[in-house]
């Protein structure tokens, strides 16, 4: 039993997710991510049950843990009440804390998660904002969405869901600063800020400098595909 496994075992999400796997494979049979990717919830459950740190590290460095779509179909179907999606959450936190996420293409996308979901929460109190759903990143939303996006303030007034009003109830309002301070204090006290900081630090280490991290981020913003940033071997 390794140190890393011991840390995993301490996580409440692992404790609630792993009861007793009988290796039946139902989780994989119903898993949408397993259908379209090189991913198997059963394999994840087997690996963590090996309690072997080397195997767990290999998993944390791979794309696999990032394929899970968090639909929890596995939880519904498992005859032993296991919950791979929760175990995946515990593994992802471990991967971020140790910086292993930077070793995989899907893992490195954590920078976007941090800079969108995380920073939105800390700045505005929402994980998603109207301006995030850009037509460039969401072309499938179509031309009517492009029109909406360009006229979003007027359109939302027209639909009775105005945006960016101060000190008002409702959708996309500006949350009062005193409430934002409380939210930031919660994120600080519960370790979320530390988790987010470790993303920036690990990406800097992986790509070589803050400047390269910004290049990686800009590549994604401009092209919507992080694979257009070439990771250099010596970094």
């Amino acid at each position, binding site marked *: 039993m390794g140190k890393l496994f011991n840390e995993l075992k301490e996580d409440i999400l692992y404790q609630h997710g792993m009861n007793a796997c009988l290796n039946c494979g139902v989780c994989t049979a119903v898993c949408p991510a397993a259908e379209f990717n090189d991913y198997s919830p059963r394999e994840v459950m087997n690996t963590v049950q090996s309690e072997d740190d080397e195997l767990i590290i290999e998993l944390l460095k791979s794309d696999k843990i990032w394929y899970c779509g968090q639909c929890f179909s596995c939880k519904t179907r498992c005859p032993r009440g296991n919950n791979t999606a929760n175990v995946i959450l515990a593994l992802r936190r471990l991967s971020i804390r140790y910086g292993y996420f930077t070793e995989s293409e899907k893992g490195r996308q954590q920078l976007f998660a941090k800079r969108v979901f995380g920073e939105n*929460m800390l700045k505005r109190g929402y994980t*998603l904002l109207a301006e995030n759903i850009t037509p460039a990143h969401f072309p499938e939303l179509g031309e009517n969405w492009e029109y909406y996006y360009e006229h979003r303030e007027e359109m*939302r007034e027209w639909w009775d869901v105005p945006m960016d009003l101060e000190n008002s109830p*409702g*959708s996309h309002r500006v949350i009062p600063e005193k409430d934002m301070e409380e*939210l930031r204090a919660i994120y600080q*006290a519960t370790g979320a800020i530390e*988790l*987010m900081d470790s993303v920036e630090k690990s990406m800097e280490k992986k790509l070589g400098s803050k400047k390269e991290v910004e290049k990686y981020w800009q590549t994604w913003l401009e092209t919507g595909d992080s694979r257009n940033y070439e990771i250099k071997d010596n970094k």
Partner: protein
Amino acid sequence: MKVARENLAWQKHQKHVPTIDEPGGKLWGCFRSCFLQSAAPYTEGIAYKILKNDLGMDLREAPGHTSCGAIGYHGDVSNVETQMVVAARNFSVAHHELGVDNLFSFCVTSFANYTEMIHLWEEEPELREYTAKTLKETTGREFWVPHVSGGRPSVVHASDVFFANRHQLAAKAKYSLKGIKAVDHIGCHYGKIFPGEAMGGVEFPQVLVGLLEAFGAEIVDYPERRHCCGMGFRQCAFPENRDYTASSVYKKMKSLKEAHPDCNLMLTNCPGCTVFLDAEQGTIKEVLEEEFNVSVLDYAQLTGLMLGYDPFKDCGLNAKAVLVEPLLDQIGIPYDKSKTAEERRRPF
């Protein structure tokens, strides 16, 4: 009287949501959704109109309540501890500032997140203690847990509130779905994380089917009915991962059309499903030249149409990939035919 086994299972999956005719059923605290506000804002608009104008509810929400943060939880920027204290803060604000006891959320991920935190507090007393202590230290607020469904610690989803009041809504309807084939698509985070908290369970949940039936629709079934839409948080948010979303939608739509080629209405209760089940049909049409033409409507949008609200100005059917007019014609809902489809959707 002895209750048959299948009925025992059915009883286990019922939850009580107070209707407007019961004590406490008219006063609700609500949590808006950051997914809805960003990707389908119109849905909240029509839901509000129905709950306030047609059901006469007093909806209260504090300016200081925040997003539940669960997109960040499933998108890996926060911890379960963070989620617990944020949930506790929102509950505390609703109860102690607004004086409400009953709470619903507009987002199924918020519903699942709040439900998960309440379950954790029930199952792990030290986490409840941690949450109350951290909430007090960080915000000065008092811990409070809602007991919405049948007096047990719980919250409900907005679609549960529509379901509970479906007969009152159907009695006010100007149009009917008689002769229309329809199917539900339940958000995974409504039914799959805590099947016991889904109205009717996860196999045959009643929450949307009940609403469709109340409006007269004929419900159909198909093999991939419970397959996820593939939204996936990291999958829908990052364009390079959206092949997963499109593939999931393709699998579902193909399965539906093989079983019921004449079913063109799918009812949803999740913002992600509402947006992507529709939008990816556009992608599939472009990439594979296959058209499914299934109108994907949110429960509030459909109820709004049935009650006679304007399909575009009120129900917000402006930015759908699938043309909604054929469905409106089928139901018999009028709209301005002197305008082009584009003019109807672009008012400015």
